[in-house]
């Protein structure tokens, strides 16, 4: 997969099935813990890591992963980018490093449980994570 990925400019499509095939092959390797299989696992873990990095870079450069098993990389990058821009250009209602969020779905965060329509003031990081899950929507300042 990484070989394909390095050749092309576009991000390759990696289907759920291909991913599952790889996963079950590696499960077998993980079952046998010895010098050779540990080395094999290390080699392929590094390859998987690079596959991730190359694909993430491509996503940042604007390539799409729509039908791949890892299309969430794209979702994360897109939302992080939007969040970053709005945060830094004053597009969100903030106080210090906290962001005011509009609750969209019932959410229990720490000891606080909130219903749709409620609000939560929480550090930018948490606001992003909750937004990634579509539980909240950062409040717009305009």
């Amino acid at each position, binding site marked *: 997969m*990484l*070989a394909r*990925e*390095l050749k092309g*400019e576009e991000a390759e499509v990696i289907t759920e099935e291909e991913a599952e095939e790889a996963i079950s*092959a*590696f499960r*077998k*390797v993980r079952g*046998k813990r010895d*010098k*050779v*299989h540990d*080395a*094999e696992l290390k*080699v*392929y873990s*590094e*390859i998987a*890591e*690079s*596959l991730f*990095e*190359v694909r993430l*870079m491509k996503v940042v*450069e604007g390539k799409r992963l729509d039908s791949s098993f890892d299309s969430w990389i794209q979702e994360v990058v897109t939302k992080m980018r939007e969040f970053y821009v709005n945060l830094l250009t004053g597009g969100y209602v903030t106080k210090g490093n906290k962001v005011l969020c509009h609750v969209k779905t019932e959410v229990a965060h720490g000891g606080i449980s909130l219903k749709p329509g409620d609000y939560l003031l929480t550090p930018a990081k948490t606001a992003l994570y909750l937004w990634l899950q579509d539980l909240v929507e950062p409040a717009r300042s305009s």
Partner: protein
Amino acid sequence: MLTVKYKALKRLVRAKKKKVDVIDDGITIDLGHEEVKLIKGSQAEIPIWLTEILEQEGYVSPSPISIEEISKYLYQEKQNSTVPGSLVQLPWDFYMRAKATLSELTKGKSIQEVERLNKISYMINEVVRIRLRKIIQLASLNVGDQTILSKLTPEENLIFLELKKNLEIINGDIGGNTIG
């Protein structure tokens, strides 16, 4: 991007297969997607990372790069050192083997060994220097000729593509294709 891609490539080539001579009793290894069988006296195609382990254990023989081999490439490369298209075909694992050979040699302590190390190291540098110059020229001339490109090692190929892409970005923006 190159940093990341280059790292990726270095990792990837370790999973590529190469032929090795099996020098000790056969064993069978189940790698998950395939089985590797080693039969003494025969040749086997196994991934590079596995050769490294099997070399240590004495199952297969290592394949270091010799001064003669490098000399040959260096000589050929120098023949037409200013003609970009004159790249010599290197084995795809040339740089990896070169690196392995050098790191093996650094373990040596005797004067002969140190001299040998210096000589090989110098020659490899020369090969790299000349080839890189040619590759940069190929990239800036926007060459796409497959017969030339097939002479590049995977590392060189990556650099070539990346250079070419970068030059295209700039050319496309401030150069001829500005309009529209």
